[in-house]
Every structure is written in structure tokens, then in C-alpha cells.
């Protein structure tokens, strides 16, 4: 995955510059189908989603269709649906059907709207496709106390219900946890998660841990990025570039196509209207780029 050039920082007018990340191939297309609209208002949400945040609106079926058509010609490998809460988009299941006809689909959800009926429909959609449909439910703790502190009272139980509904439908959800406390990503935290899931009868527990991004609501919960958290003056090797998700993804929202799922609220991260406008390199001048680079994480499963 090493086509495209990797530009290191040069010093023009004595100022240290940021490295650029090339797009090696557009493998992963993210679709912010619910915009910044969510039925929750989590205290760590890095794009501050809430019932009233309309910064990015719901995407229309027509818009998603046109992006999927373009993605097909570009040879996209997989599709990720997110928000906000994607299940708030009333066309979501139709979008899945269209997307599943041309590639594997993952969806990131808080689980609350996954009723037994929705789970059964998801199972049907999955069975009808030759591709995987991967459902990722966010749990920010292995008990109600941690989770609800971030996501609101009673939300742990409701998310767990969604997980159970998926499990009963024979789908194997991935649990996504943000590292809201230090122990979550550590061995003990992971073990507790797996234990909790097993005790619920989830016999193929899958777990994905995500680092904290100090943007959006998280700034109030803990702190903002500081000046040293930056890639200014850093030279990016090819291997390092290949580890960044922006080396192989783009994110489409109602407002256009952005470089990656992390930066849709950052100035300068919108690269164009259509996918073909966004195939060039991107300057890594955002603090979140520092998190990507230092942790090597990707939002993909």
C-alpha cells in the first residue's frame, strides 16, 4: 500500500511544517448517515452529537446512493455507517440493502434502537448478502456505573438489551469501548468486558477498544489537546503513513466528503463534494492526527 508520495516537513520561511498522508487506495468509505444527531448526548463524544446538534444533517437516501455508485467505480472494499445514531435515519435499512449488494457493511450504534424486530430485519439483510454485516455497539464500561456516567442513566441496560437482541438474532455484535478510564483497554478491563458478555450468554464476544479523542464534548469532560500534541515538524515514513486510517479511507456527510471519521468538525478537513475530489494527500495538521500517529489506532473494526 505504498503508492502516492509521502511528503516530509520542509522548512519554508524557517517554519516547521506538517507531514502529508497520501491516500494509497480508497478501501473504506464512511457515511455519517445520521449527521451529528443522536438520541444520546455522551460526555466524551468527540463531535458533540446530541438530539439538537444539526451541524451535519441526516443524509438522504439519494445522496448515499450516489456516493455508493461512485464508490463502486473506485473499488471500495467496505462501508461504515455512523452518526450520531445511525438508526435514527429512517432510510437506514434501505441504505444497508443497497450497500450490502456491493460490499461489506459495518454500523456503529449505541444499541438503543435495536429492538427484536430491527435485529430480525438485520439478520435478514445479512443473510441475503454475500458480504458481512457487522454491528458495533458502544459500551463505555462493563458495568452500569461507568457506562451511565458517560451516556446517561439507565443507558447501560438499554444498550445491553440491544446487544442481546442482536445475539438472539444470531448476529455477533462487536462491543466498542472508548478508553474513558485507564483500565478499560488494559488486560483487566478487557477480561471484565468479556466476562460480562459471556455471563449474558454472548458466546462469541468481540471487543474493540478506542482511544479518547480530546475534541468536542470530551474537552469539557477531561481536557483539550495541548500544543505539544501535534505532528508539526514530524517526518512520516511510508510505514507510518500506511498505519494511518486516512491512508485508506474517506468520510462522507451531508456537507461533503471529509478526510476521515475524526475530523468532520475541524476546519480544513473537508476535501470536496464527491469522492473523486478527495483522492489526494492530506496535511496532518490536526491534534487528532497526533493520537492516530502515536496509538496507531483506526476506527475500523
Amino acid at each position, binding site marked *: 500500500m505504498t503508492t502516492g508520495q509521502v511528503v516530509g516537513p520542509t522548512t519554508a520561511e524557517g517554519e516547521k511544517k506538517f507531514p502529508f498522508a497520501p491516500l494509497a487506495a480508497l478501501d473504506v468509505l464512511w457515511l455519517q448517515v445520521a449527521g451529528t444527531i443522536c438520541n444520546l448526548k455522551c460526555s466524551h463524544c468527540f463531535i458533540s452529537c446530541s438530539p439538537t446538534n444539526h451541524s451535519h444533517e441526516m443524509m438522504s437516501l439519494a445522496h448515499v446512493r450516489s456516493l455508493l455508485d461512485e464508490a463502486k467505480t473506485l*473499488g*471500495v472494499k*467496505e462501508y461504515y455507517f455512523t452518526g450520531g445514531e445511525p438508526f435514527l435515519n429512517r432510510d437506514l435499512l434501505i441504505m444497508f440493502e443497497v450497500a450490502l449488494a456491493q460490499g461489506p457493511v459495518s454500523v456503529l450504534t449505541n444499541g438503543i434502537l435495536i429492538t427484536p424486530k430491527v435485529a430480525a430485519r438485520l439478520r435478514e439483510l445479512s443473510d441475503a448478502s454475500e*458480504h*458481512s454485516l457487522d454491528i458495533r455497539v458502544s459500551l463505555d464500561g462493563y458495568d452500569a456505573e461507568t457506562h451511565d456516567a458517560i451516556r446517561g442513566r439507565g443507558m447501560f441496560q438499554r444498550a445491553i438489551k440491544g446487544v442481546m437482541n442482536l445475539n438472539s438474532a444470531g*448476529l*455477533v455484535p462487536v462491543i466498542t469501548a472508548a478508553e474513558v478510564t485507564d483500565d478499560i483497554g488494559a488486560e483487566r478491563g478487557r477480561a471484565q468486558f468479556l466476562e460480562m458478555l459471556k455471563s449474558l450468554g454472548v458466546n*462469541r464476544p*468481540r*471487543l474493540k477498544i478506542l482511544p479518547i479523542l480530546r475534541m468536542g464534548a470530551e474537552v469539557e469532560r477531561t481536557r483539550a489537546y495541548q500544543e505539544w500534541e501535534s505532528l508539526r515538524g514530524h517526518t512520516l515514513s511510508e510505514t507510518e503513513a500506511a498505519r494511518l486510517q486516512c491512508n485508506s479511507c474517506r468520510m462522507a456527510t451531508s456537507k461533503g466528503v471529509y478526510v476521515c471519521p475524526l475530523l468532520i468538525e475541524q476546519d480544513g478537513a473537508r476535501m470536496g463534494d464527491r469522492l473523486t475530489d478527495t483522492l489526494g494527500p492530506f496535511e496532518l495538521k490536526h491534534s487528532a492526527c497526533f493520537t492516530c500517529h502515536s496509538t496507531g489506532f483506526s476506527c475500523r473494526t
Partner: protein
Amino acid sequence: MRYANLESYDRVLFIGGIYSNYLALEKAFTMARSLKAEAVIVMGDFGGFGPFPDRTLELLRREKIFAIQGNYEEALAGGAEDCGCGYTDPRDNHYAQISYDYTRSCTSAEHVRWMGELPRYIRLSIGGQRTLVCHGSPRQINEFLWQTMTPRPFIEKMLRDFDTDLIICTHTGLHWSRFIEPGRGVVNVGALGRPANDGKTNVWMSLLEWQDYGFRAEFIPIEYDFDRLAREMESEKLPPEFVATIRTGWWTTCLEVLPAKERARGQF
């Protein structure tokens, strides 16, 4: 050497990840003769998981076969500290490390040298169609090409980018094929080293043949003395989780890389 070019064939046998399963390999070579394959190509990951890695290598070097490197050979020949399988989950990595450390300490230097000389890709023609043999994918030695995660538009793009009609790969341990038109597509030949996570103890290899209408990819089950392999793994103090896979046909480790559907088919 990155590429090796072979001539034209109509009927070729492919052997994916062997993972030190020398008993299945012996059986595969015997079967290859009765299958009348014109050529046999082994596709890397000779070691890992199973016992006595040198036994596999001795067999490979005795036979008239073609071979490419997998991530295991690249890692061993390059003196790497881990197998470069591309797992992300800590438990998966834990077991991968046990396999790699064992394999590394039991593989003779002369075999490691041989691995270092193997090409990374083979190009050949099968039935007149351009064919590219790689370990993971044509662009990355440890890319996982799963059946439910390798859609047609992506296949189309890879065939275009790498100037070929057919991609033959392994690395995932599960066999499948997808043709976007007759004679153009991807065949993942699966693994000879461990069962296909289906509750059966047999392992797999693949015969690819050109017939007038297109390719026929035949996935061939191989029964072998799995109980003997399991006992030898135990005597070598390899993890009981690995032994359980050999005895039951269900994967117990390195599961987190599986996509939703492949995961749902297994027991764990």
C-alpha cells in the same frame, strides 16, 4: 527476488498455509500425484501452530514444487521478532507470539536461508489467463482476503492495478472463490495446516483447472492422522488451545480478525 515467472499450465495444485502440519503435507503430496497436477505451488506460512517446523521444510525441499514466501518466511528470514500476521487483538497476538517463538527456535538456519531466497509472488498463465499468486493480497503480504469482505468492485480494481486476470491467495485459513466473470476473479486456497473452523478435522488444498468456459476451483479435503499431530503438539508443549483446534476442527485463537459472518459460523 520479488517476482518469479513460470510458464503456462492448465491444471495446478495450490497449497496454502501449512503451519508445520507435515503429516497433512505428506498426504497432500501423495494425492498430488494421483490428481495429475502439472505443477504444485505452496504459498507460504510453512511454520507456526504445529510441531517440528523442520519436518515440513525437509518435505518441501525434497519435492519438485514452486514456493513463495508468506509473512512467516518473510519474518523468519528478516529476523523479525513477531510473525507479522496482522492481528490487532492482544489475546490473538499472545498466541501468535507463542507459535512464532517456537517455530523460530526450532527452524534450522539453512532452512531460514532458503526461505529468504523465495520469491514473494509468482506470475504464471493458467489456461491462457494471467494469474498472480500471492500470500495475503497482491499489495500486502498480510492482508486478509475473506470471502465476505472481498467485494466485486474491489476485486475488479485489484485485477486492474496488478495487471492480472486471477489472484490466488491464502493467509486467512479459509478457502473460497469469487469470479467476477468467467476467468477473472480471486481464489483463496485456504490452509493445509489447520481445519477450516467448521467442526471437521480435515484440512484443505485447491486444484485450479482451466475448462473451456472458465476456471474450475476445486477445494480438496484432506484427511490425515490428526491425532498423531495433536499428540506431537502436546509433547512439544504447544498450547492446549492449538491442540483443541486440531482435534475438534474449531478455531480457538486468532478469532478476532474474523468478519461477522465467518465468526458466526464457528463455535467460539
